């Protein structure tokens, strides 16, 4: 048993992080908020880098890697707050022409509201009668489908979403710690106050516990493991972003700070895996099964 990242996995993660730092940095994030819309060039860039084709066999023109590698890539996407129907397009690689290369943007009608409906080239599922929502997340346009049959996201979609949530949890902790080290009040960095310090410690503990669950679920691909990963990652992301906002004080409540974007995206993703109670029921059934 070597439940640690391999050299290759580390390299992959660092590579994706660098790519995203180049193509989608803080300025790009701010620009995207100011002028929402899917950046097609970025999407194709991701396609070229193999983001969508990561799990497609090499014989089909893919990268031929597995779920753990996809999870690492999606964690980075979550960390960078990368917008777009990433999970749906990734899952469509190999079945929808152009999805693997980032030429085609694919969205899916799952359990929650439909993301990026009007920007997508291909919509999987029945979106007829879709009504636009005023989306809480400025970077994720949403539609409600009134008469949609209750469709549930598949386990892989749930796991990749959990990986994005893990990215948010990690990022929120980093941002909070950075702020707590530099912002001074009462003549010392606020991070010296236990009330702040303990918020940060709990953020890390939640993120690291979620990380262990998400990575393990990527290795086993077991639906019960995935449900567990989902619950822990949702919690780590939502509470992490909330606590990050608290640590930032008034600045955290402004539109300009990046913090609210993390919280809002965490809320959007939390809807993607179906009702929380469904995951809890699955885990409960496992106890007596």
């Amino acid at each position, binding site marked *: *048993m*070597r*439940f*640690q*990242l*391999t050299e290759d*996995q580390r390299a992959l993660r660092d590579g994706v992080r660098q790519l995203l730092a180049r193509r989608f940095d803080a300025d790009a994030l701010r620009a995207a908020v100011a002028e929402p819309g899917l950046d097609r060039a970025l999407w194709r860039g991701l396609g070229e880098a193999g983001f969508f084709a990561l799990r497609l066999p090499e014989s089909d023109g893919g990268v031929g890697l597995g779920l*753990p590698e996809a999870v690492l890539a999606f964690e980075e996407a979550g960390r960078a707050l990368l917008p777009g129907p990433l999970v749906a397009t990734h899952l469509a690689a190999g079945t929808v022409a152009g999805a693997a290369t980032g030429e085609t943007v694919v969205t899916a009608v799952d359990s929650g509201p439909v993301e990026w409906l009007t920007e997508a080239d291909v919509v999987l599922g029945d979106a007829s009668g879709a009504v636009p929502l005023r989306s809480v997340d400025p970077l994720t346009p949403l539609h409600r489908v009134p008469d949609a049959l209750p469709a549930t996201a598949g386990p892989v979609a749930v796991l990749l979403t959990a990986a994005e949530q893990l990215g948010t949890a990690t990022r929120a*902790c980093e941002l909070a*710690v950075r702020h*707590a*080290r530099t912002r001074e009040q009462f003549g*010392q*960095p606020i*991070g*010296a*106050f*236990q009330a*702040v*310090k*303990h918020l*940060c*410690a*709990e953020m*890390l*503990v939640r993120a*690291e*516990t*979620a*990380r*262990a*669950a998400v*990575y*393990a679920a*990527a*290795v*086993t691909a077991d639906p*019960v*493991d995935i*449900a*567990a*990963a989902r*619950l*822990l990652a949702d919690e780590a992301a939502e509470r992490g972003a909330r606590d990050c906002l608290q640590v930032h004080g008034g600045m955290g409540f402004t539109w300009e700070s990046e913090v609210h974007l993390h919280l809002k995206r965490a809320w959007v993703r939390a809807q993607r895996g179906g009702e929380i*109670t469904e*995951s*809890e*029921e*699955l*885990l*409960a*059934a*496992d*106890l*007596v099964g």
Partner: protein
Amino acid sequence: MDLSYTPEEEDFRARLREWLAEVLPGLPPKPSPDDWPARRAYDLGWQRMLYDAGYAEVYWNASPTVRLIFLEETEQAGAPYVGANFVGLLHAGPTIASEGTPEQRARWLPPVLRGDEVWCQGFSEPDAGSDLAALRTRAWRDGDHYVVSGSKIWTSHAEVADWCELLVRTDPAAPKHRGITWLAMPMDAPGITVRPLRTLAGSAEFAEVFLDEVQVPVTNRVGAENDGWRVTMVTLSFERGTAFVGEVVACRRVLGELAREARKNGRWDDPVLRRRLGRLNAEFRALWRLTQWNVSEAEAGGGVPGIGGSVFKLRYSHARQELYDAAAAVLGAQSLDLDRLWVLDRLSSLSYTIAAGTSQIQRNIVAERILGLPKGR
């Protein structure tokens, strides 16, 4: 990332499982939790069986992964818990193995593994709990002995221990972290008085220990004089790092039993309770994965558990309390009956956020040592 075990490890697991199936049915019933002399005898008897079968070694001489498998299998099979042997096997032993001289290792390690000698931990004092380095128990040199005076508190199972890993102040003039020394004190030395304290669970789990000019040979010192704080950090890394592995497995087992009990008594039909148990399933699965992650890290890092132990300890202590609160919800009014299963466990789970460093202290450690936040007052 790989969660599979090597063929040798799987082989070890299979042999251990077979052996456990063979010996466990023949064990005598567990003694009452209040009866420490009986518990000592029981726990040492089990340790001796492990020793004779060649499994005792696992605590110090096996890889972290093999130790993980050992703790997982013994717990899953319902084998006795380390109990009275806790300090010897999980703190003092590893500390002496890592910091002791060859003579010290030869003197103290085999009796712990054989189940001949029991250790206790004399760290805390009435005025030095979270602020452990504020300890005041004094020791001064008198020829080839230290003479020790002072008092210790919350010393678990002191009255049945043969040895105590004792922290003393050897240089009162030095800054508080600098003047501390780590000694192995024989518990039958003249001048030692043990006064059991009653816990909130009603039993005498720990004690006060009064030390009145107790003589401890200088050769019993582990590490250099006044270098005891560093040695203590080694001890604490074991305490927080790997000491809880078996317990996570135990909690997962209890959770399954709880679900079955809830099915029997009808409370399973309550979706709120059912989902609460489902969430605990997620929690303990994640804690098990975190354990595997930390063990893998220790394996890569030469065997000494890292700071990740504090992350684990924080989350685990609270999860354990939630588990037994859920047990009370399953039991309903029966949770007020001390003779019911899980009720005493619920009481003892209250100590998890206090013992081995309170949750507040663990949060300080995580924030300062992992996240690099500034030290405050």
